């Protein structure tokens, strides 16, 4: 640490150049923060919970409904603590552009199997007591300005109702929030009751879209998933059971290989950064050949000089990278906003910071080492003669 002054002096020797390099590093890491946020949303989904939840869908395809009668048989399996179910409603609020997921769910079981959804006891009570009740996520409240007590009309694009119209009216009884340490997917969704839905629709009564099965011991979920599928093999409604995480991953993959696209962009970006900072470092060291020779004459060992140069690169990249990620945190809400409802809210998580830090250090070594090794090999006499 006693050489901190020397490292900083090295960077400040050519201020405008350092500043410009710093700025390109910042830009690269802003981009890294944004894209990694997008990648995380596609690869893992916003909530990492659900280790103990299984999703049961039709083996034929995700849109094929399952008979309600399966519920009791799944619930009777050993190791299953609770079974909830949901139907994709596909309702539209005012305009198709206002897309958000809305699901008809088994009220009590759904809330019990999704403890990450935070509700006040009164809200929960109201949802369980009112047939037309709806719960809306906090992100939707922020987007549309709804409040508890409002009537919410949705056009049922898939399900016309038995009153002869497409409009279904719900009563908002609560706002679903996510906890501090865990984001609930429900924050961007609207949930309502299956009984209201099933009585009101014109076709498909007695069927559900998918089941959510809670297991007692997550370690046994693979075995239980197989047991569920075995239960309905060769029946009219064969099932496919996956953990919630697998289900989300498989679904995200349908959009395409987002990971690959992001990796390709990042490769282009970091290759450029490598070139920009590498060039700056090499230039800086070349100009200071004389200084370095003097340092060595004064008794600085080759290793110390080497370390000084690498430290310079580290400082430049870590400071620039951290500034970039911090900036990404500021920019992400705006990008999320521009994508309203197309993607769940994006964020720079701890994972991104960690990977980012790794990248900063790796890049610093890549750009710092070549000139540092050059300085290590430098012969004092030659250098001083040239200077």
């Amino acid at each position: 640490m006693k050489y901190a002054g020397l490292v900083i002096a090295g960077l400040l020797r050519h201020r405008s150049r350092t500043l410009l390099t710093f700025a390109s590093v910042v830009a690269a890491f802003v981009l890294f923060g944004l894209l990694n946020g997008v990648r995380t949303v596609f690869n893992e989904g916003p909530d990492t919970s659900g280790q103990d939840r299984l999703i049961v869908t039709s083996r034929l395809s995700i849109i094929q409904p399952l008979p309600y009668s399966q519920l009791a048989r799944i619930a009777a399996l050993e190791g299953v603590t609770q079974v909830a179910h949901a139907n994709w409603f596909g309702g539209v609020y005012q305009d198709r552009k206002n897309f958000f997921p809305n699901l008809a769910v088994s009220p009590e079981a759904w809330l019990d199997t999704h403890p990450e959804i935070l509700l006040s006891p009164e809200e929960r009570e109201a949802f369980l007591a009112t047939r037309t009740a709806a719960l809306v996520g906090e992100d939707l409240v922020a987007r549309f300005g709804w409040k508890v007590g409002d009537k919410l009309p949705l056009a049922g694009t898939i399900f016309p109702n038995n009153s002869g119209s497409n409009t279904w009216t719900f009563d908002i009884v609560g706002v679903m929030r996510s906890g501090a340490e865990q984001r609930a997917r429900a924050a961007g969704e609207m949930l309502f009751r299956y009984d209201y839905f099933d009585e009101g629709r014109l076709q498909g009564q007695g069927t559900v879209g998918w089941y959510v099965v809670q297991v007692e011991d997550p370690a046994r979920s693979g075995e239980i998933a197989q047991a569920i599928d075995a239960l309905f093999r060769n029946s009219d409604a064969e099932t496919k059971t996956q953990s919630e995480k697998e289900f989300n991953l498989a679904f995200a993959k349908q959009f395409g290989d987002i990971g690959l696209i992001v990796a390709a962009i990042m490769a282009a970006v970091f290759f450029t950064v490598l070139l920009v900072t590498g060039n700056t470092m090499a230039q800086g060291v070349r100009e200071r050949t004389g200084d370095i020779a003097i340092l060595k004459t004064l008794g600085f060992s080759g290793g110390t000089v080497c370390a000084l140069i690498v430290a310079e690169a580290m400082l430049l990249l870590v400071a620039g990278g951290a500034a970039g990620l911090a900036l990404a945190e500021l920019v992400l809400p705006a990008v999320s906003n521009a994508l309203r409802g197309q993607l769940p809210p994006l964020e720079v998580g701890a994972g991104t910071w960690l990977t980012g830090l790794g990248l900063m250090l790796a890049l610093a070594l890549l750009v710092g080492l070549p000139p540092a090794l050059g300085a290590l090999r430098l012969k004092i006499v030659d250098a001083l003669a040239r200077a």
Partner: protein
Amino acid sequence: MGVLRQAGALAWTGLSTLHRRLGSSLVIVVGIAGVVGVLVSLLAMRDGFQATLAATGRVDEAIVLRGGANSELSSRLTREEATLIAEAPGVLGGPDGRPLASAEVVVVVNLPKKATGTDSNVELRGVGPRALALRGQVRVVAGRPFAAGRRELLVGRGAVAQFSGLALGSRVSLAGEPWEVVGVFASGDAHESEVWADAESVQSAYRRDAFQSVRVKLTDARAFDTFKAALAADPRLKVDVERTRDYYATQSQRLRRLIEVLATTVAIIMAIGATFGALNTMYAAVATRAREIAILRALGFTAGAVVLAVMIEAVALAVLGGLLGAAIAWLVFDNYTVSTLGANFSQVVFAFRVTPGLILDALRWALAIGVLGGLLPALHAARAPLTSALRGR
């Protein structure tokens, strides 16, 4: 005139000594190649998707869905409704005098994607006997069409390429029953991602008694209004009618917007980074030539010529980078075929399209970065006090 000649001479010296500043010049070239390459690739993805869906629609073709349904998947039409729709005025008659209409069933089936091995949603479309005559763009390129009432499949070329187990002659298990692939079709549009079969066969396999959409060929583009008005006037029908061109344009909107926001955000940030890189390079370039430039100015070269010459060098490097980026994007991504989740909750296979228009657009970005990156160093070089520059600092 003199200024231009001076600038030309100066720029030439600069460009012919570039090899001595290779490392730093590469920073501009590679930085801008990155921006242009990424921008062109992402927009080529948007254009490819849009073009595929746009090619699917026609102005003289209409699609009829249940009132309020926004895609085929959410729609439902009974057999009686389908007959009424096909017989409405404005529908073109086939050679046999019967209307060119096709009542269709859409089912989503699970098939593994070749690239990832994971299940993806593939559209199984049960079509009427006149579906091929109705869609002029559909050509059977291998095998034959399915026979009525049989468990036979005619699969799109894109679906064969993207999903496992659809090769001609293979057997596929759908709804728990074996189906045989008897033909492959090409259409150059979104249908190529689909698997087709006889509507009656699909209905019986999936135990459905209704259709999801009816597609009709109109006598001409203007007949749409007649057709739409006739359906609206019929009290037995509650349906939405759209030209297929408009229907497919709406379906591509969401993804288009997503890619646009992503591409622009990424390109702007990369461009900012590249501009700083370019500034760095050009500052270094004028610094190494500071003395030479000062001598030339002392000899009578004007400040304007110096500015112009530096700008020419920056812009030349920028355009080189832009062309390089566009070339890479074109080589790697033109016709690169992928699939994504599109309308009807199922996969749409499409190819990236790197068009000259896109490349020109991206070159404009390259030019802007070159001009921005060259301007400040150019002014700096032109304004450096002569006496100190001549003394070499």
